[in-house]
């Protein structure tokens, strides 16, 4: 007579725990990598945005022919940090870089006119937490851009000499 056993032996339990443990060992890193990959991708997006914004601002600023705002500091000193920069470009057009109420950084051209309208401006980047500018002497502008991603701040700063300033 065949005797049917019910239940599981201690050895089986131990094997099951071992297998589960082994699986968990593989699973955890996978989920962890996945989470980290997402974070890294977000950060790369941010870095990319920052680079684009920096390139756009520095490209416009470096051929500038004059700074109208922030005001000129006395002598070789430096101004405080301001939140906008207004300058003349190589064609003496007046441009302004500012942060709008939707956290978008905008390049606004006072001379981009169609009939009686001014173009809205060019969005340089979004999710910008802070834009700060200060002026060194007559022709040097330093700016800082801060983006906030996942409660972390990323900041880039640059210092540009305007080549067309008299």
């Amino acid at each position: 007579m065949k005797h049917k056993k019910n239940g599981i032996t201690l050895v089986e339990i131990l094997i099951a725990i071992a297998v589960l443990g082994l699986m968990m060992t593989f699973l955890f890193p996978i989920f962890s990598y996945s989470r980290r990959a997402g974070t890294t991708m977000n950060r790369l997006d941010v870095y990319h945005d920052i680079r684009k914004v920096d390139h756009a601002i520095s490209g416009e600023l470096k051929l500038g022919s004059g700074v109208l705002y922030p005001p000129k500091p006395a002598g070789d000193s430096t101004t405080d940090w301001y939140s906008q920069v207004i300058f003349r470009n190589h064609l003496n057009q007046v441009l302004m870089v500012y942060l709008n109420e939707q956290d978008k950084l905008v390049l606004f051209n006072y001379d981009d006119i169609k009939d009686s309208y001014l173009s809205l401006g060019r969005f340089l980047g979004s999710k910008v937490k802070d834009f700060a500018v200060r002026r060194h002497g007559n022709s040097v502008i330093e700016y800082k851009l801060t983006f906030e991603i996942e409660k972390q701040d990323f900041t880039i700063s640059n210092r540009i000499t305007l080549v067309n300033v008299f």
Partner: protein
Amino acid sequence: MRRKGSAIMMAIILGSVFFMAVSGLLRHSSGEMKHIKAVSSVKKAEMLAMSGIDWAESELRVGRWYGKDFEPYEKNIGEHQTFGVKDLTPFGSGEGKVKIVCEDVANKVPGENMYGMQKIWFLHHINVYALGQFENQKCLIYGRYIVSPEPILNSKSTDGAGFASPEHGIPGAVGVAASKSTVNGEEIFDYVVKEVKVSQYDNVDVNTVVAILNPLNDPDTNIEVRPHTFGVVAEVKCEVGQTCRAGDNVMILTKTIDTAGAGSAVMKTLKKMVRVTKIPLEIWKDLDIEDRNDRFTLSQYINGISGDYLQNFVAHASLENALKDIGNTKLDKKLSAQKILNKLPAHITNTTRNRAENTFLAHMIKNFTAPGGTWDKKEKALNKTYLKLDHPKTTKPPKELVDWLSELGLAHVLNTKPRRDSRYFDPRMKNDEFLNLLTPKYNQPPEKFIEELSQLSDASRLIRIEEGDFGSSQVHNENENGITIINPDKGVKVTVEKVTKKYSFVDPESGFAIEMQDLMSFIKKYYDDDGSQSPREDTRTNEHIDWPLPKPAPPPPTPRQGGTYVWNPGTPGTPPGEPTWTYKNGTKHEVDHPVGDSRDFEPHTSNPDGGREDYEVIGEDAVENTDGGENEESENDNWATGRCRTTGCKSTKGAIQLDKGGKWTGEAGKPGVDPSQGSYVWVADPPPPEPGSQGNDGSDGEESGGGDGTGTGTGGTPGTPGGGGGPSGNPGAGPSVPASPPPPPPAPPRSAFGAC
């Protein structure tokens, strides 16, 4: 045996998840890398192009590497290249390259009778194109290298002609030349030196008679020679008894500008790379900067945007005023476009071209200091720069003259222009103070504006009183050059000559000085292309060729008994006629001005300040403003109309015309006639004079006014400051004022005397 379980399935699923996560990350990284590479390539191409501009600036500061030395008295045909090309890899091999092309742009009008040349071209500016290339990205940047006083075009120098090729042996020196005069209706070109009244190192000015000449055939008439500027005599080039011809220098002056305690200032050449501009790809994508015809197309584009550059400069007076009001106050961290416009208005100030030019010139003068140095130093220097009137003191008239004039009731002729505003005569007047004096005159033509900044007419007076029979009519004639008064009752003729003096810009901090005429010419080159001419050939064979004067006298042969070697100076030839240029196989392309849309300069006849136009912003930011800004409601209502408040929106600005795809071909003008070179001729001593005869026939025993054989003075009546206005008299200013009167015709051969 059948196996149960899902381990394999689970492994596959987990593996897939793992693979997707990793590959997603890798793909994203790769995409990111591509973006980074693209952005980096664009940036590198720009940096390479900028490096090219920087390289060109530092190179051009020294000279034009593609040019050849200037050769005075030689024909310059087919030798001088109009451009130079340079390939560089500033960041190392494999890190991209930059191609730099520098191209000379000539002044439209040549100079005459200077630097050993009858006709000579000067450099207006240099167009610099730098094409940066990194991988598949390209960037073309333009820069304009401007120089003043102007260098000689057919040379490799970028120093002002008076510094690089000093006409008088000393850089920046000024010649005092004999000038043509009119005696009894006859024009006199040849003189004998009767008296030299100054010696080396003497200080002289416009009222100093430096020499007295007699017309060759009229020893009883005295002609006074005066300098047209103050200075110190560096060399006396004539002796009593010598002959000289109109245009010959009788002496050379050097100028020292005393900066009152800070040493002395020295005249220098101003050089700078300006208007550094990134040219849009759509303009140059099918052009080759090594092809001169394509560069001509590019220069047309640059000419086209030069007006925009000027117009934009003056367009935002309201914004600038608002910014002044804001001062150091910080605006909110985050703003809408409409809120910005409420604080910083976008009103456009349309104005006339004259006012725009003069405003730009004035702004630059107010902010000008010597090149180089830190901003701190510049700012300090700004408070000290000034304009100095050439020999500012007015000569105190002799008592005898004053008494005479009082007796004649003509004391008023002693007064010069201070009646307008005595500040114009200040020895050292601050720039901004000077410009404030000119503020009401901003709508006059810029040439007039520049003249008022550069010189003071009627700054001094020369008065002569002659006694004799001058007819029976009372005469009182006055014009801008002088006054003639005849009092027949007293038998007196009073002649008043009004003398113009120049202003110089002085920066005492750095010891830099430049004539205001040259400084203004420098600033005008920022935007002005009217006075320039881009080349239409690679080597100057038809256009912009210089034409020589006869060479100066070499040392004479060894003297021998029985006569004298006399220098026959030869005669100037005729420069070739202007070539004709034709543009073939090309098409006209039109491109829009990059800015301005409906904006244009107002006609000169309209209100100089123009009309104002208010603008609103297209798009969401404009809408946003309807939510807030209660105080700005009325403004918004106006904006909501979406129309210009004033009628100023009509566009009169045409598109920029570009000639593309064709070639310029030139047809030479009428051939020139070479000058005949001078030579020494032997003139035997005349036989002893017989009683009652005079010894000079003046017909075939030849000699010359020698000197350096260059330029001629212009105009002038007996006793005017010698050769004052002529280009030869002032090499520093000459190139900037090329439209000088034509030189007097060559003097006939003259009899034997030593030459001035």
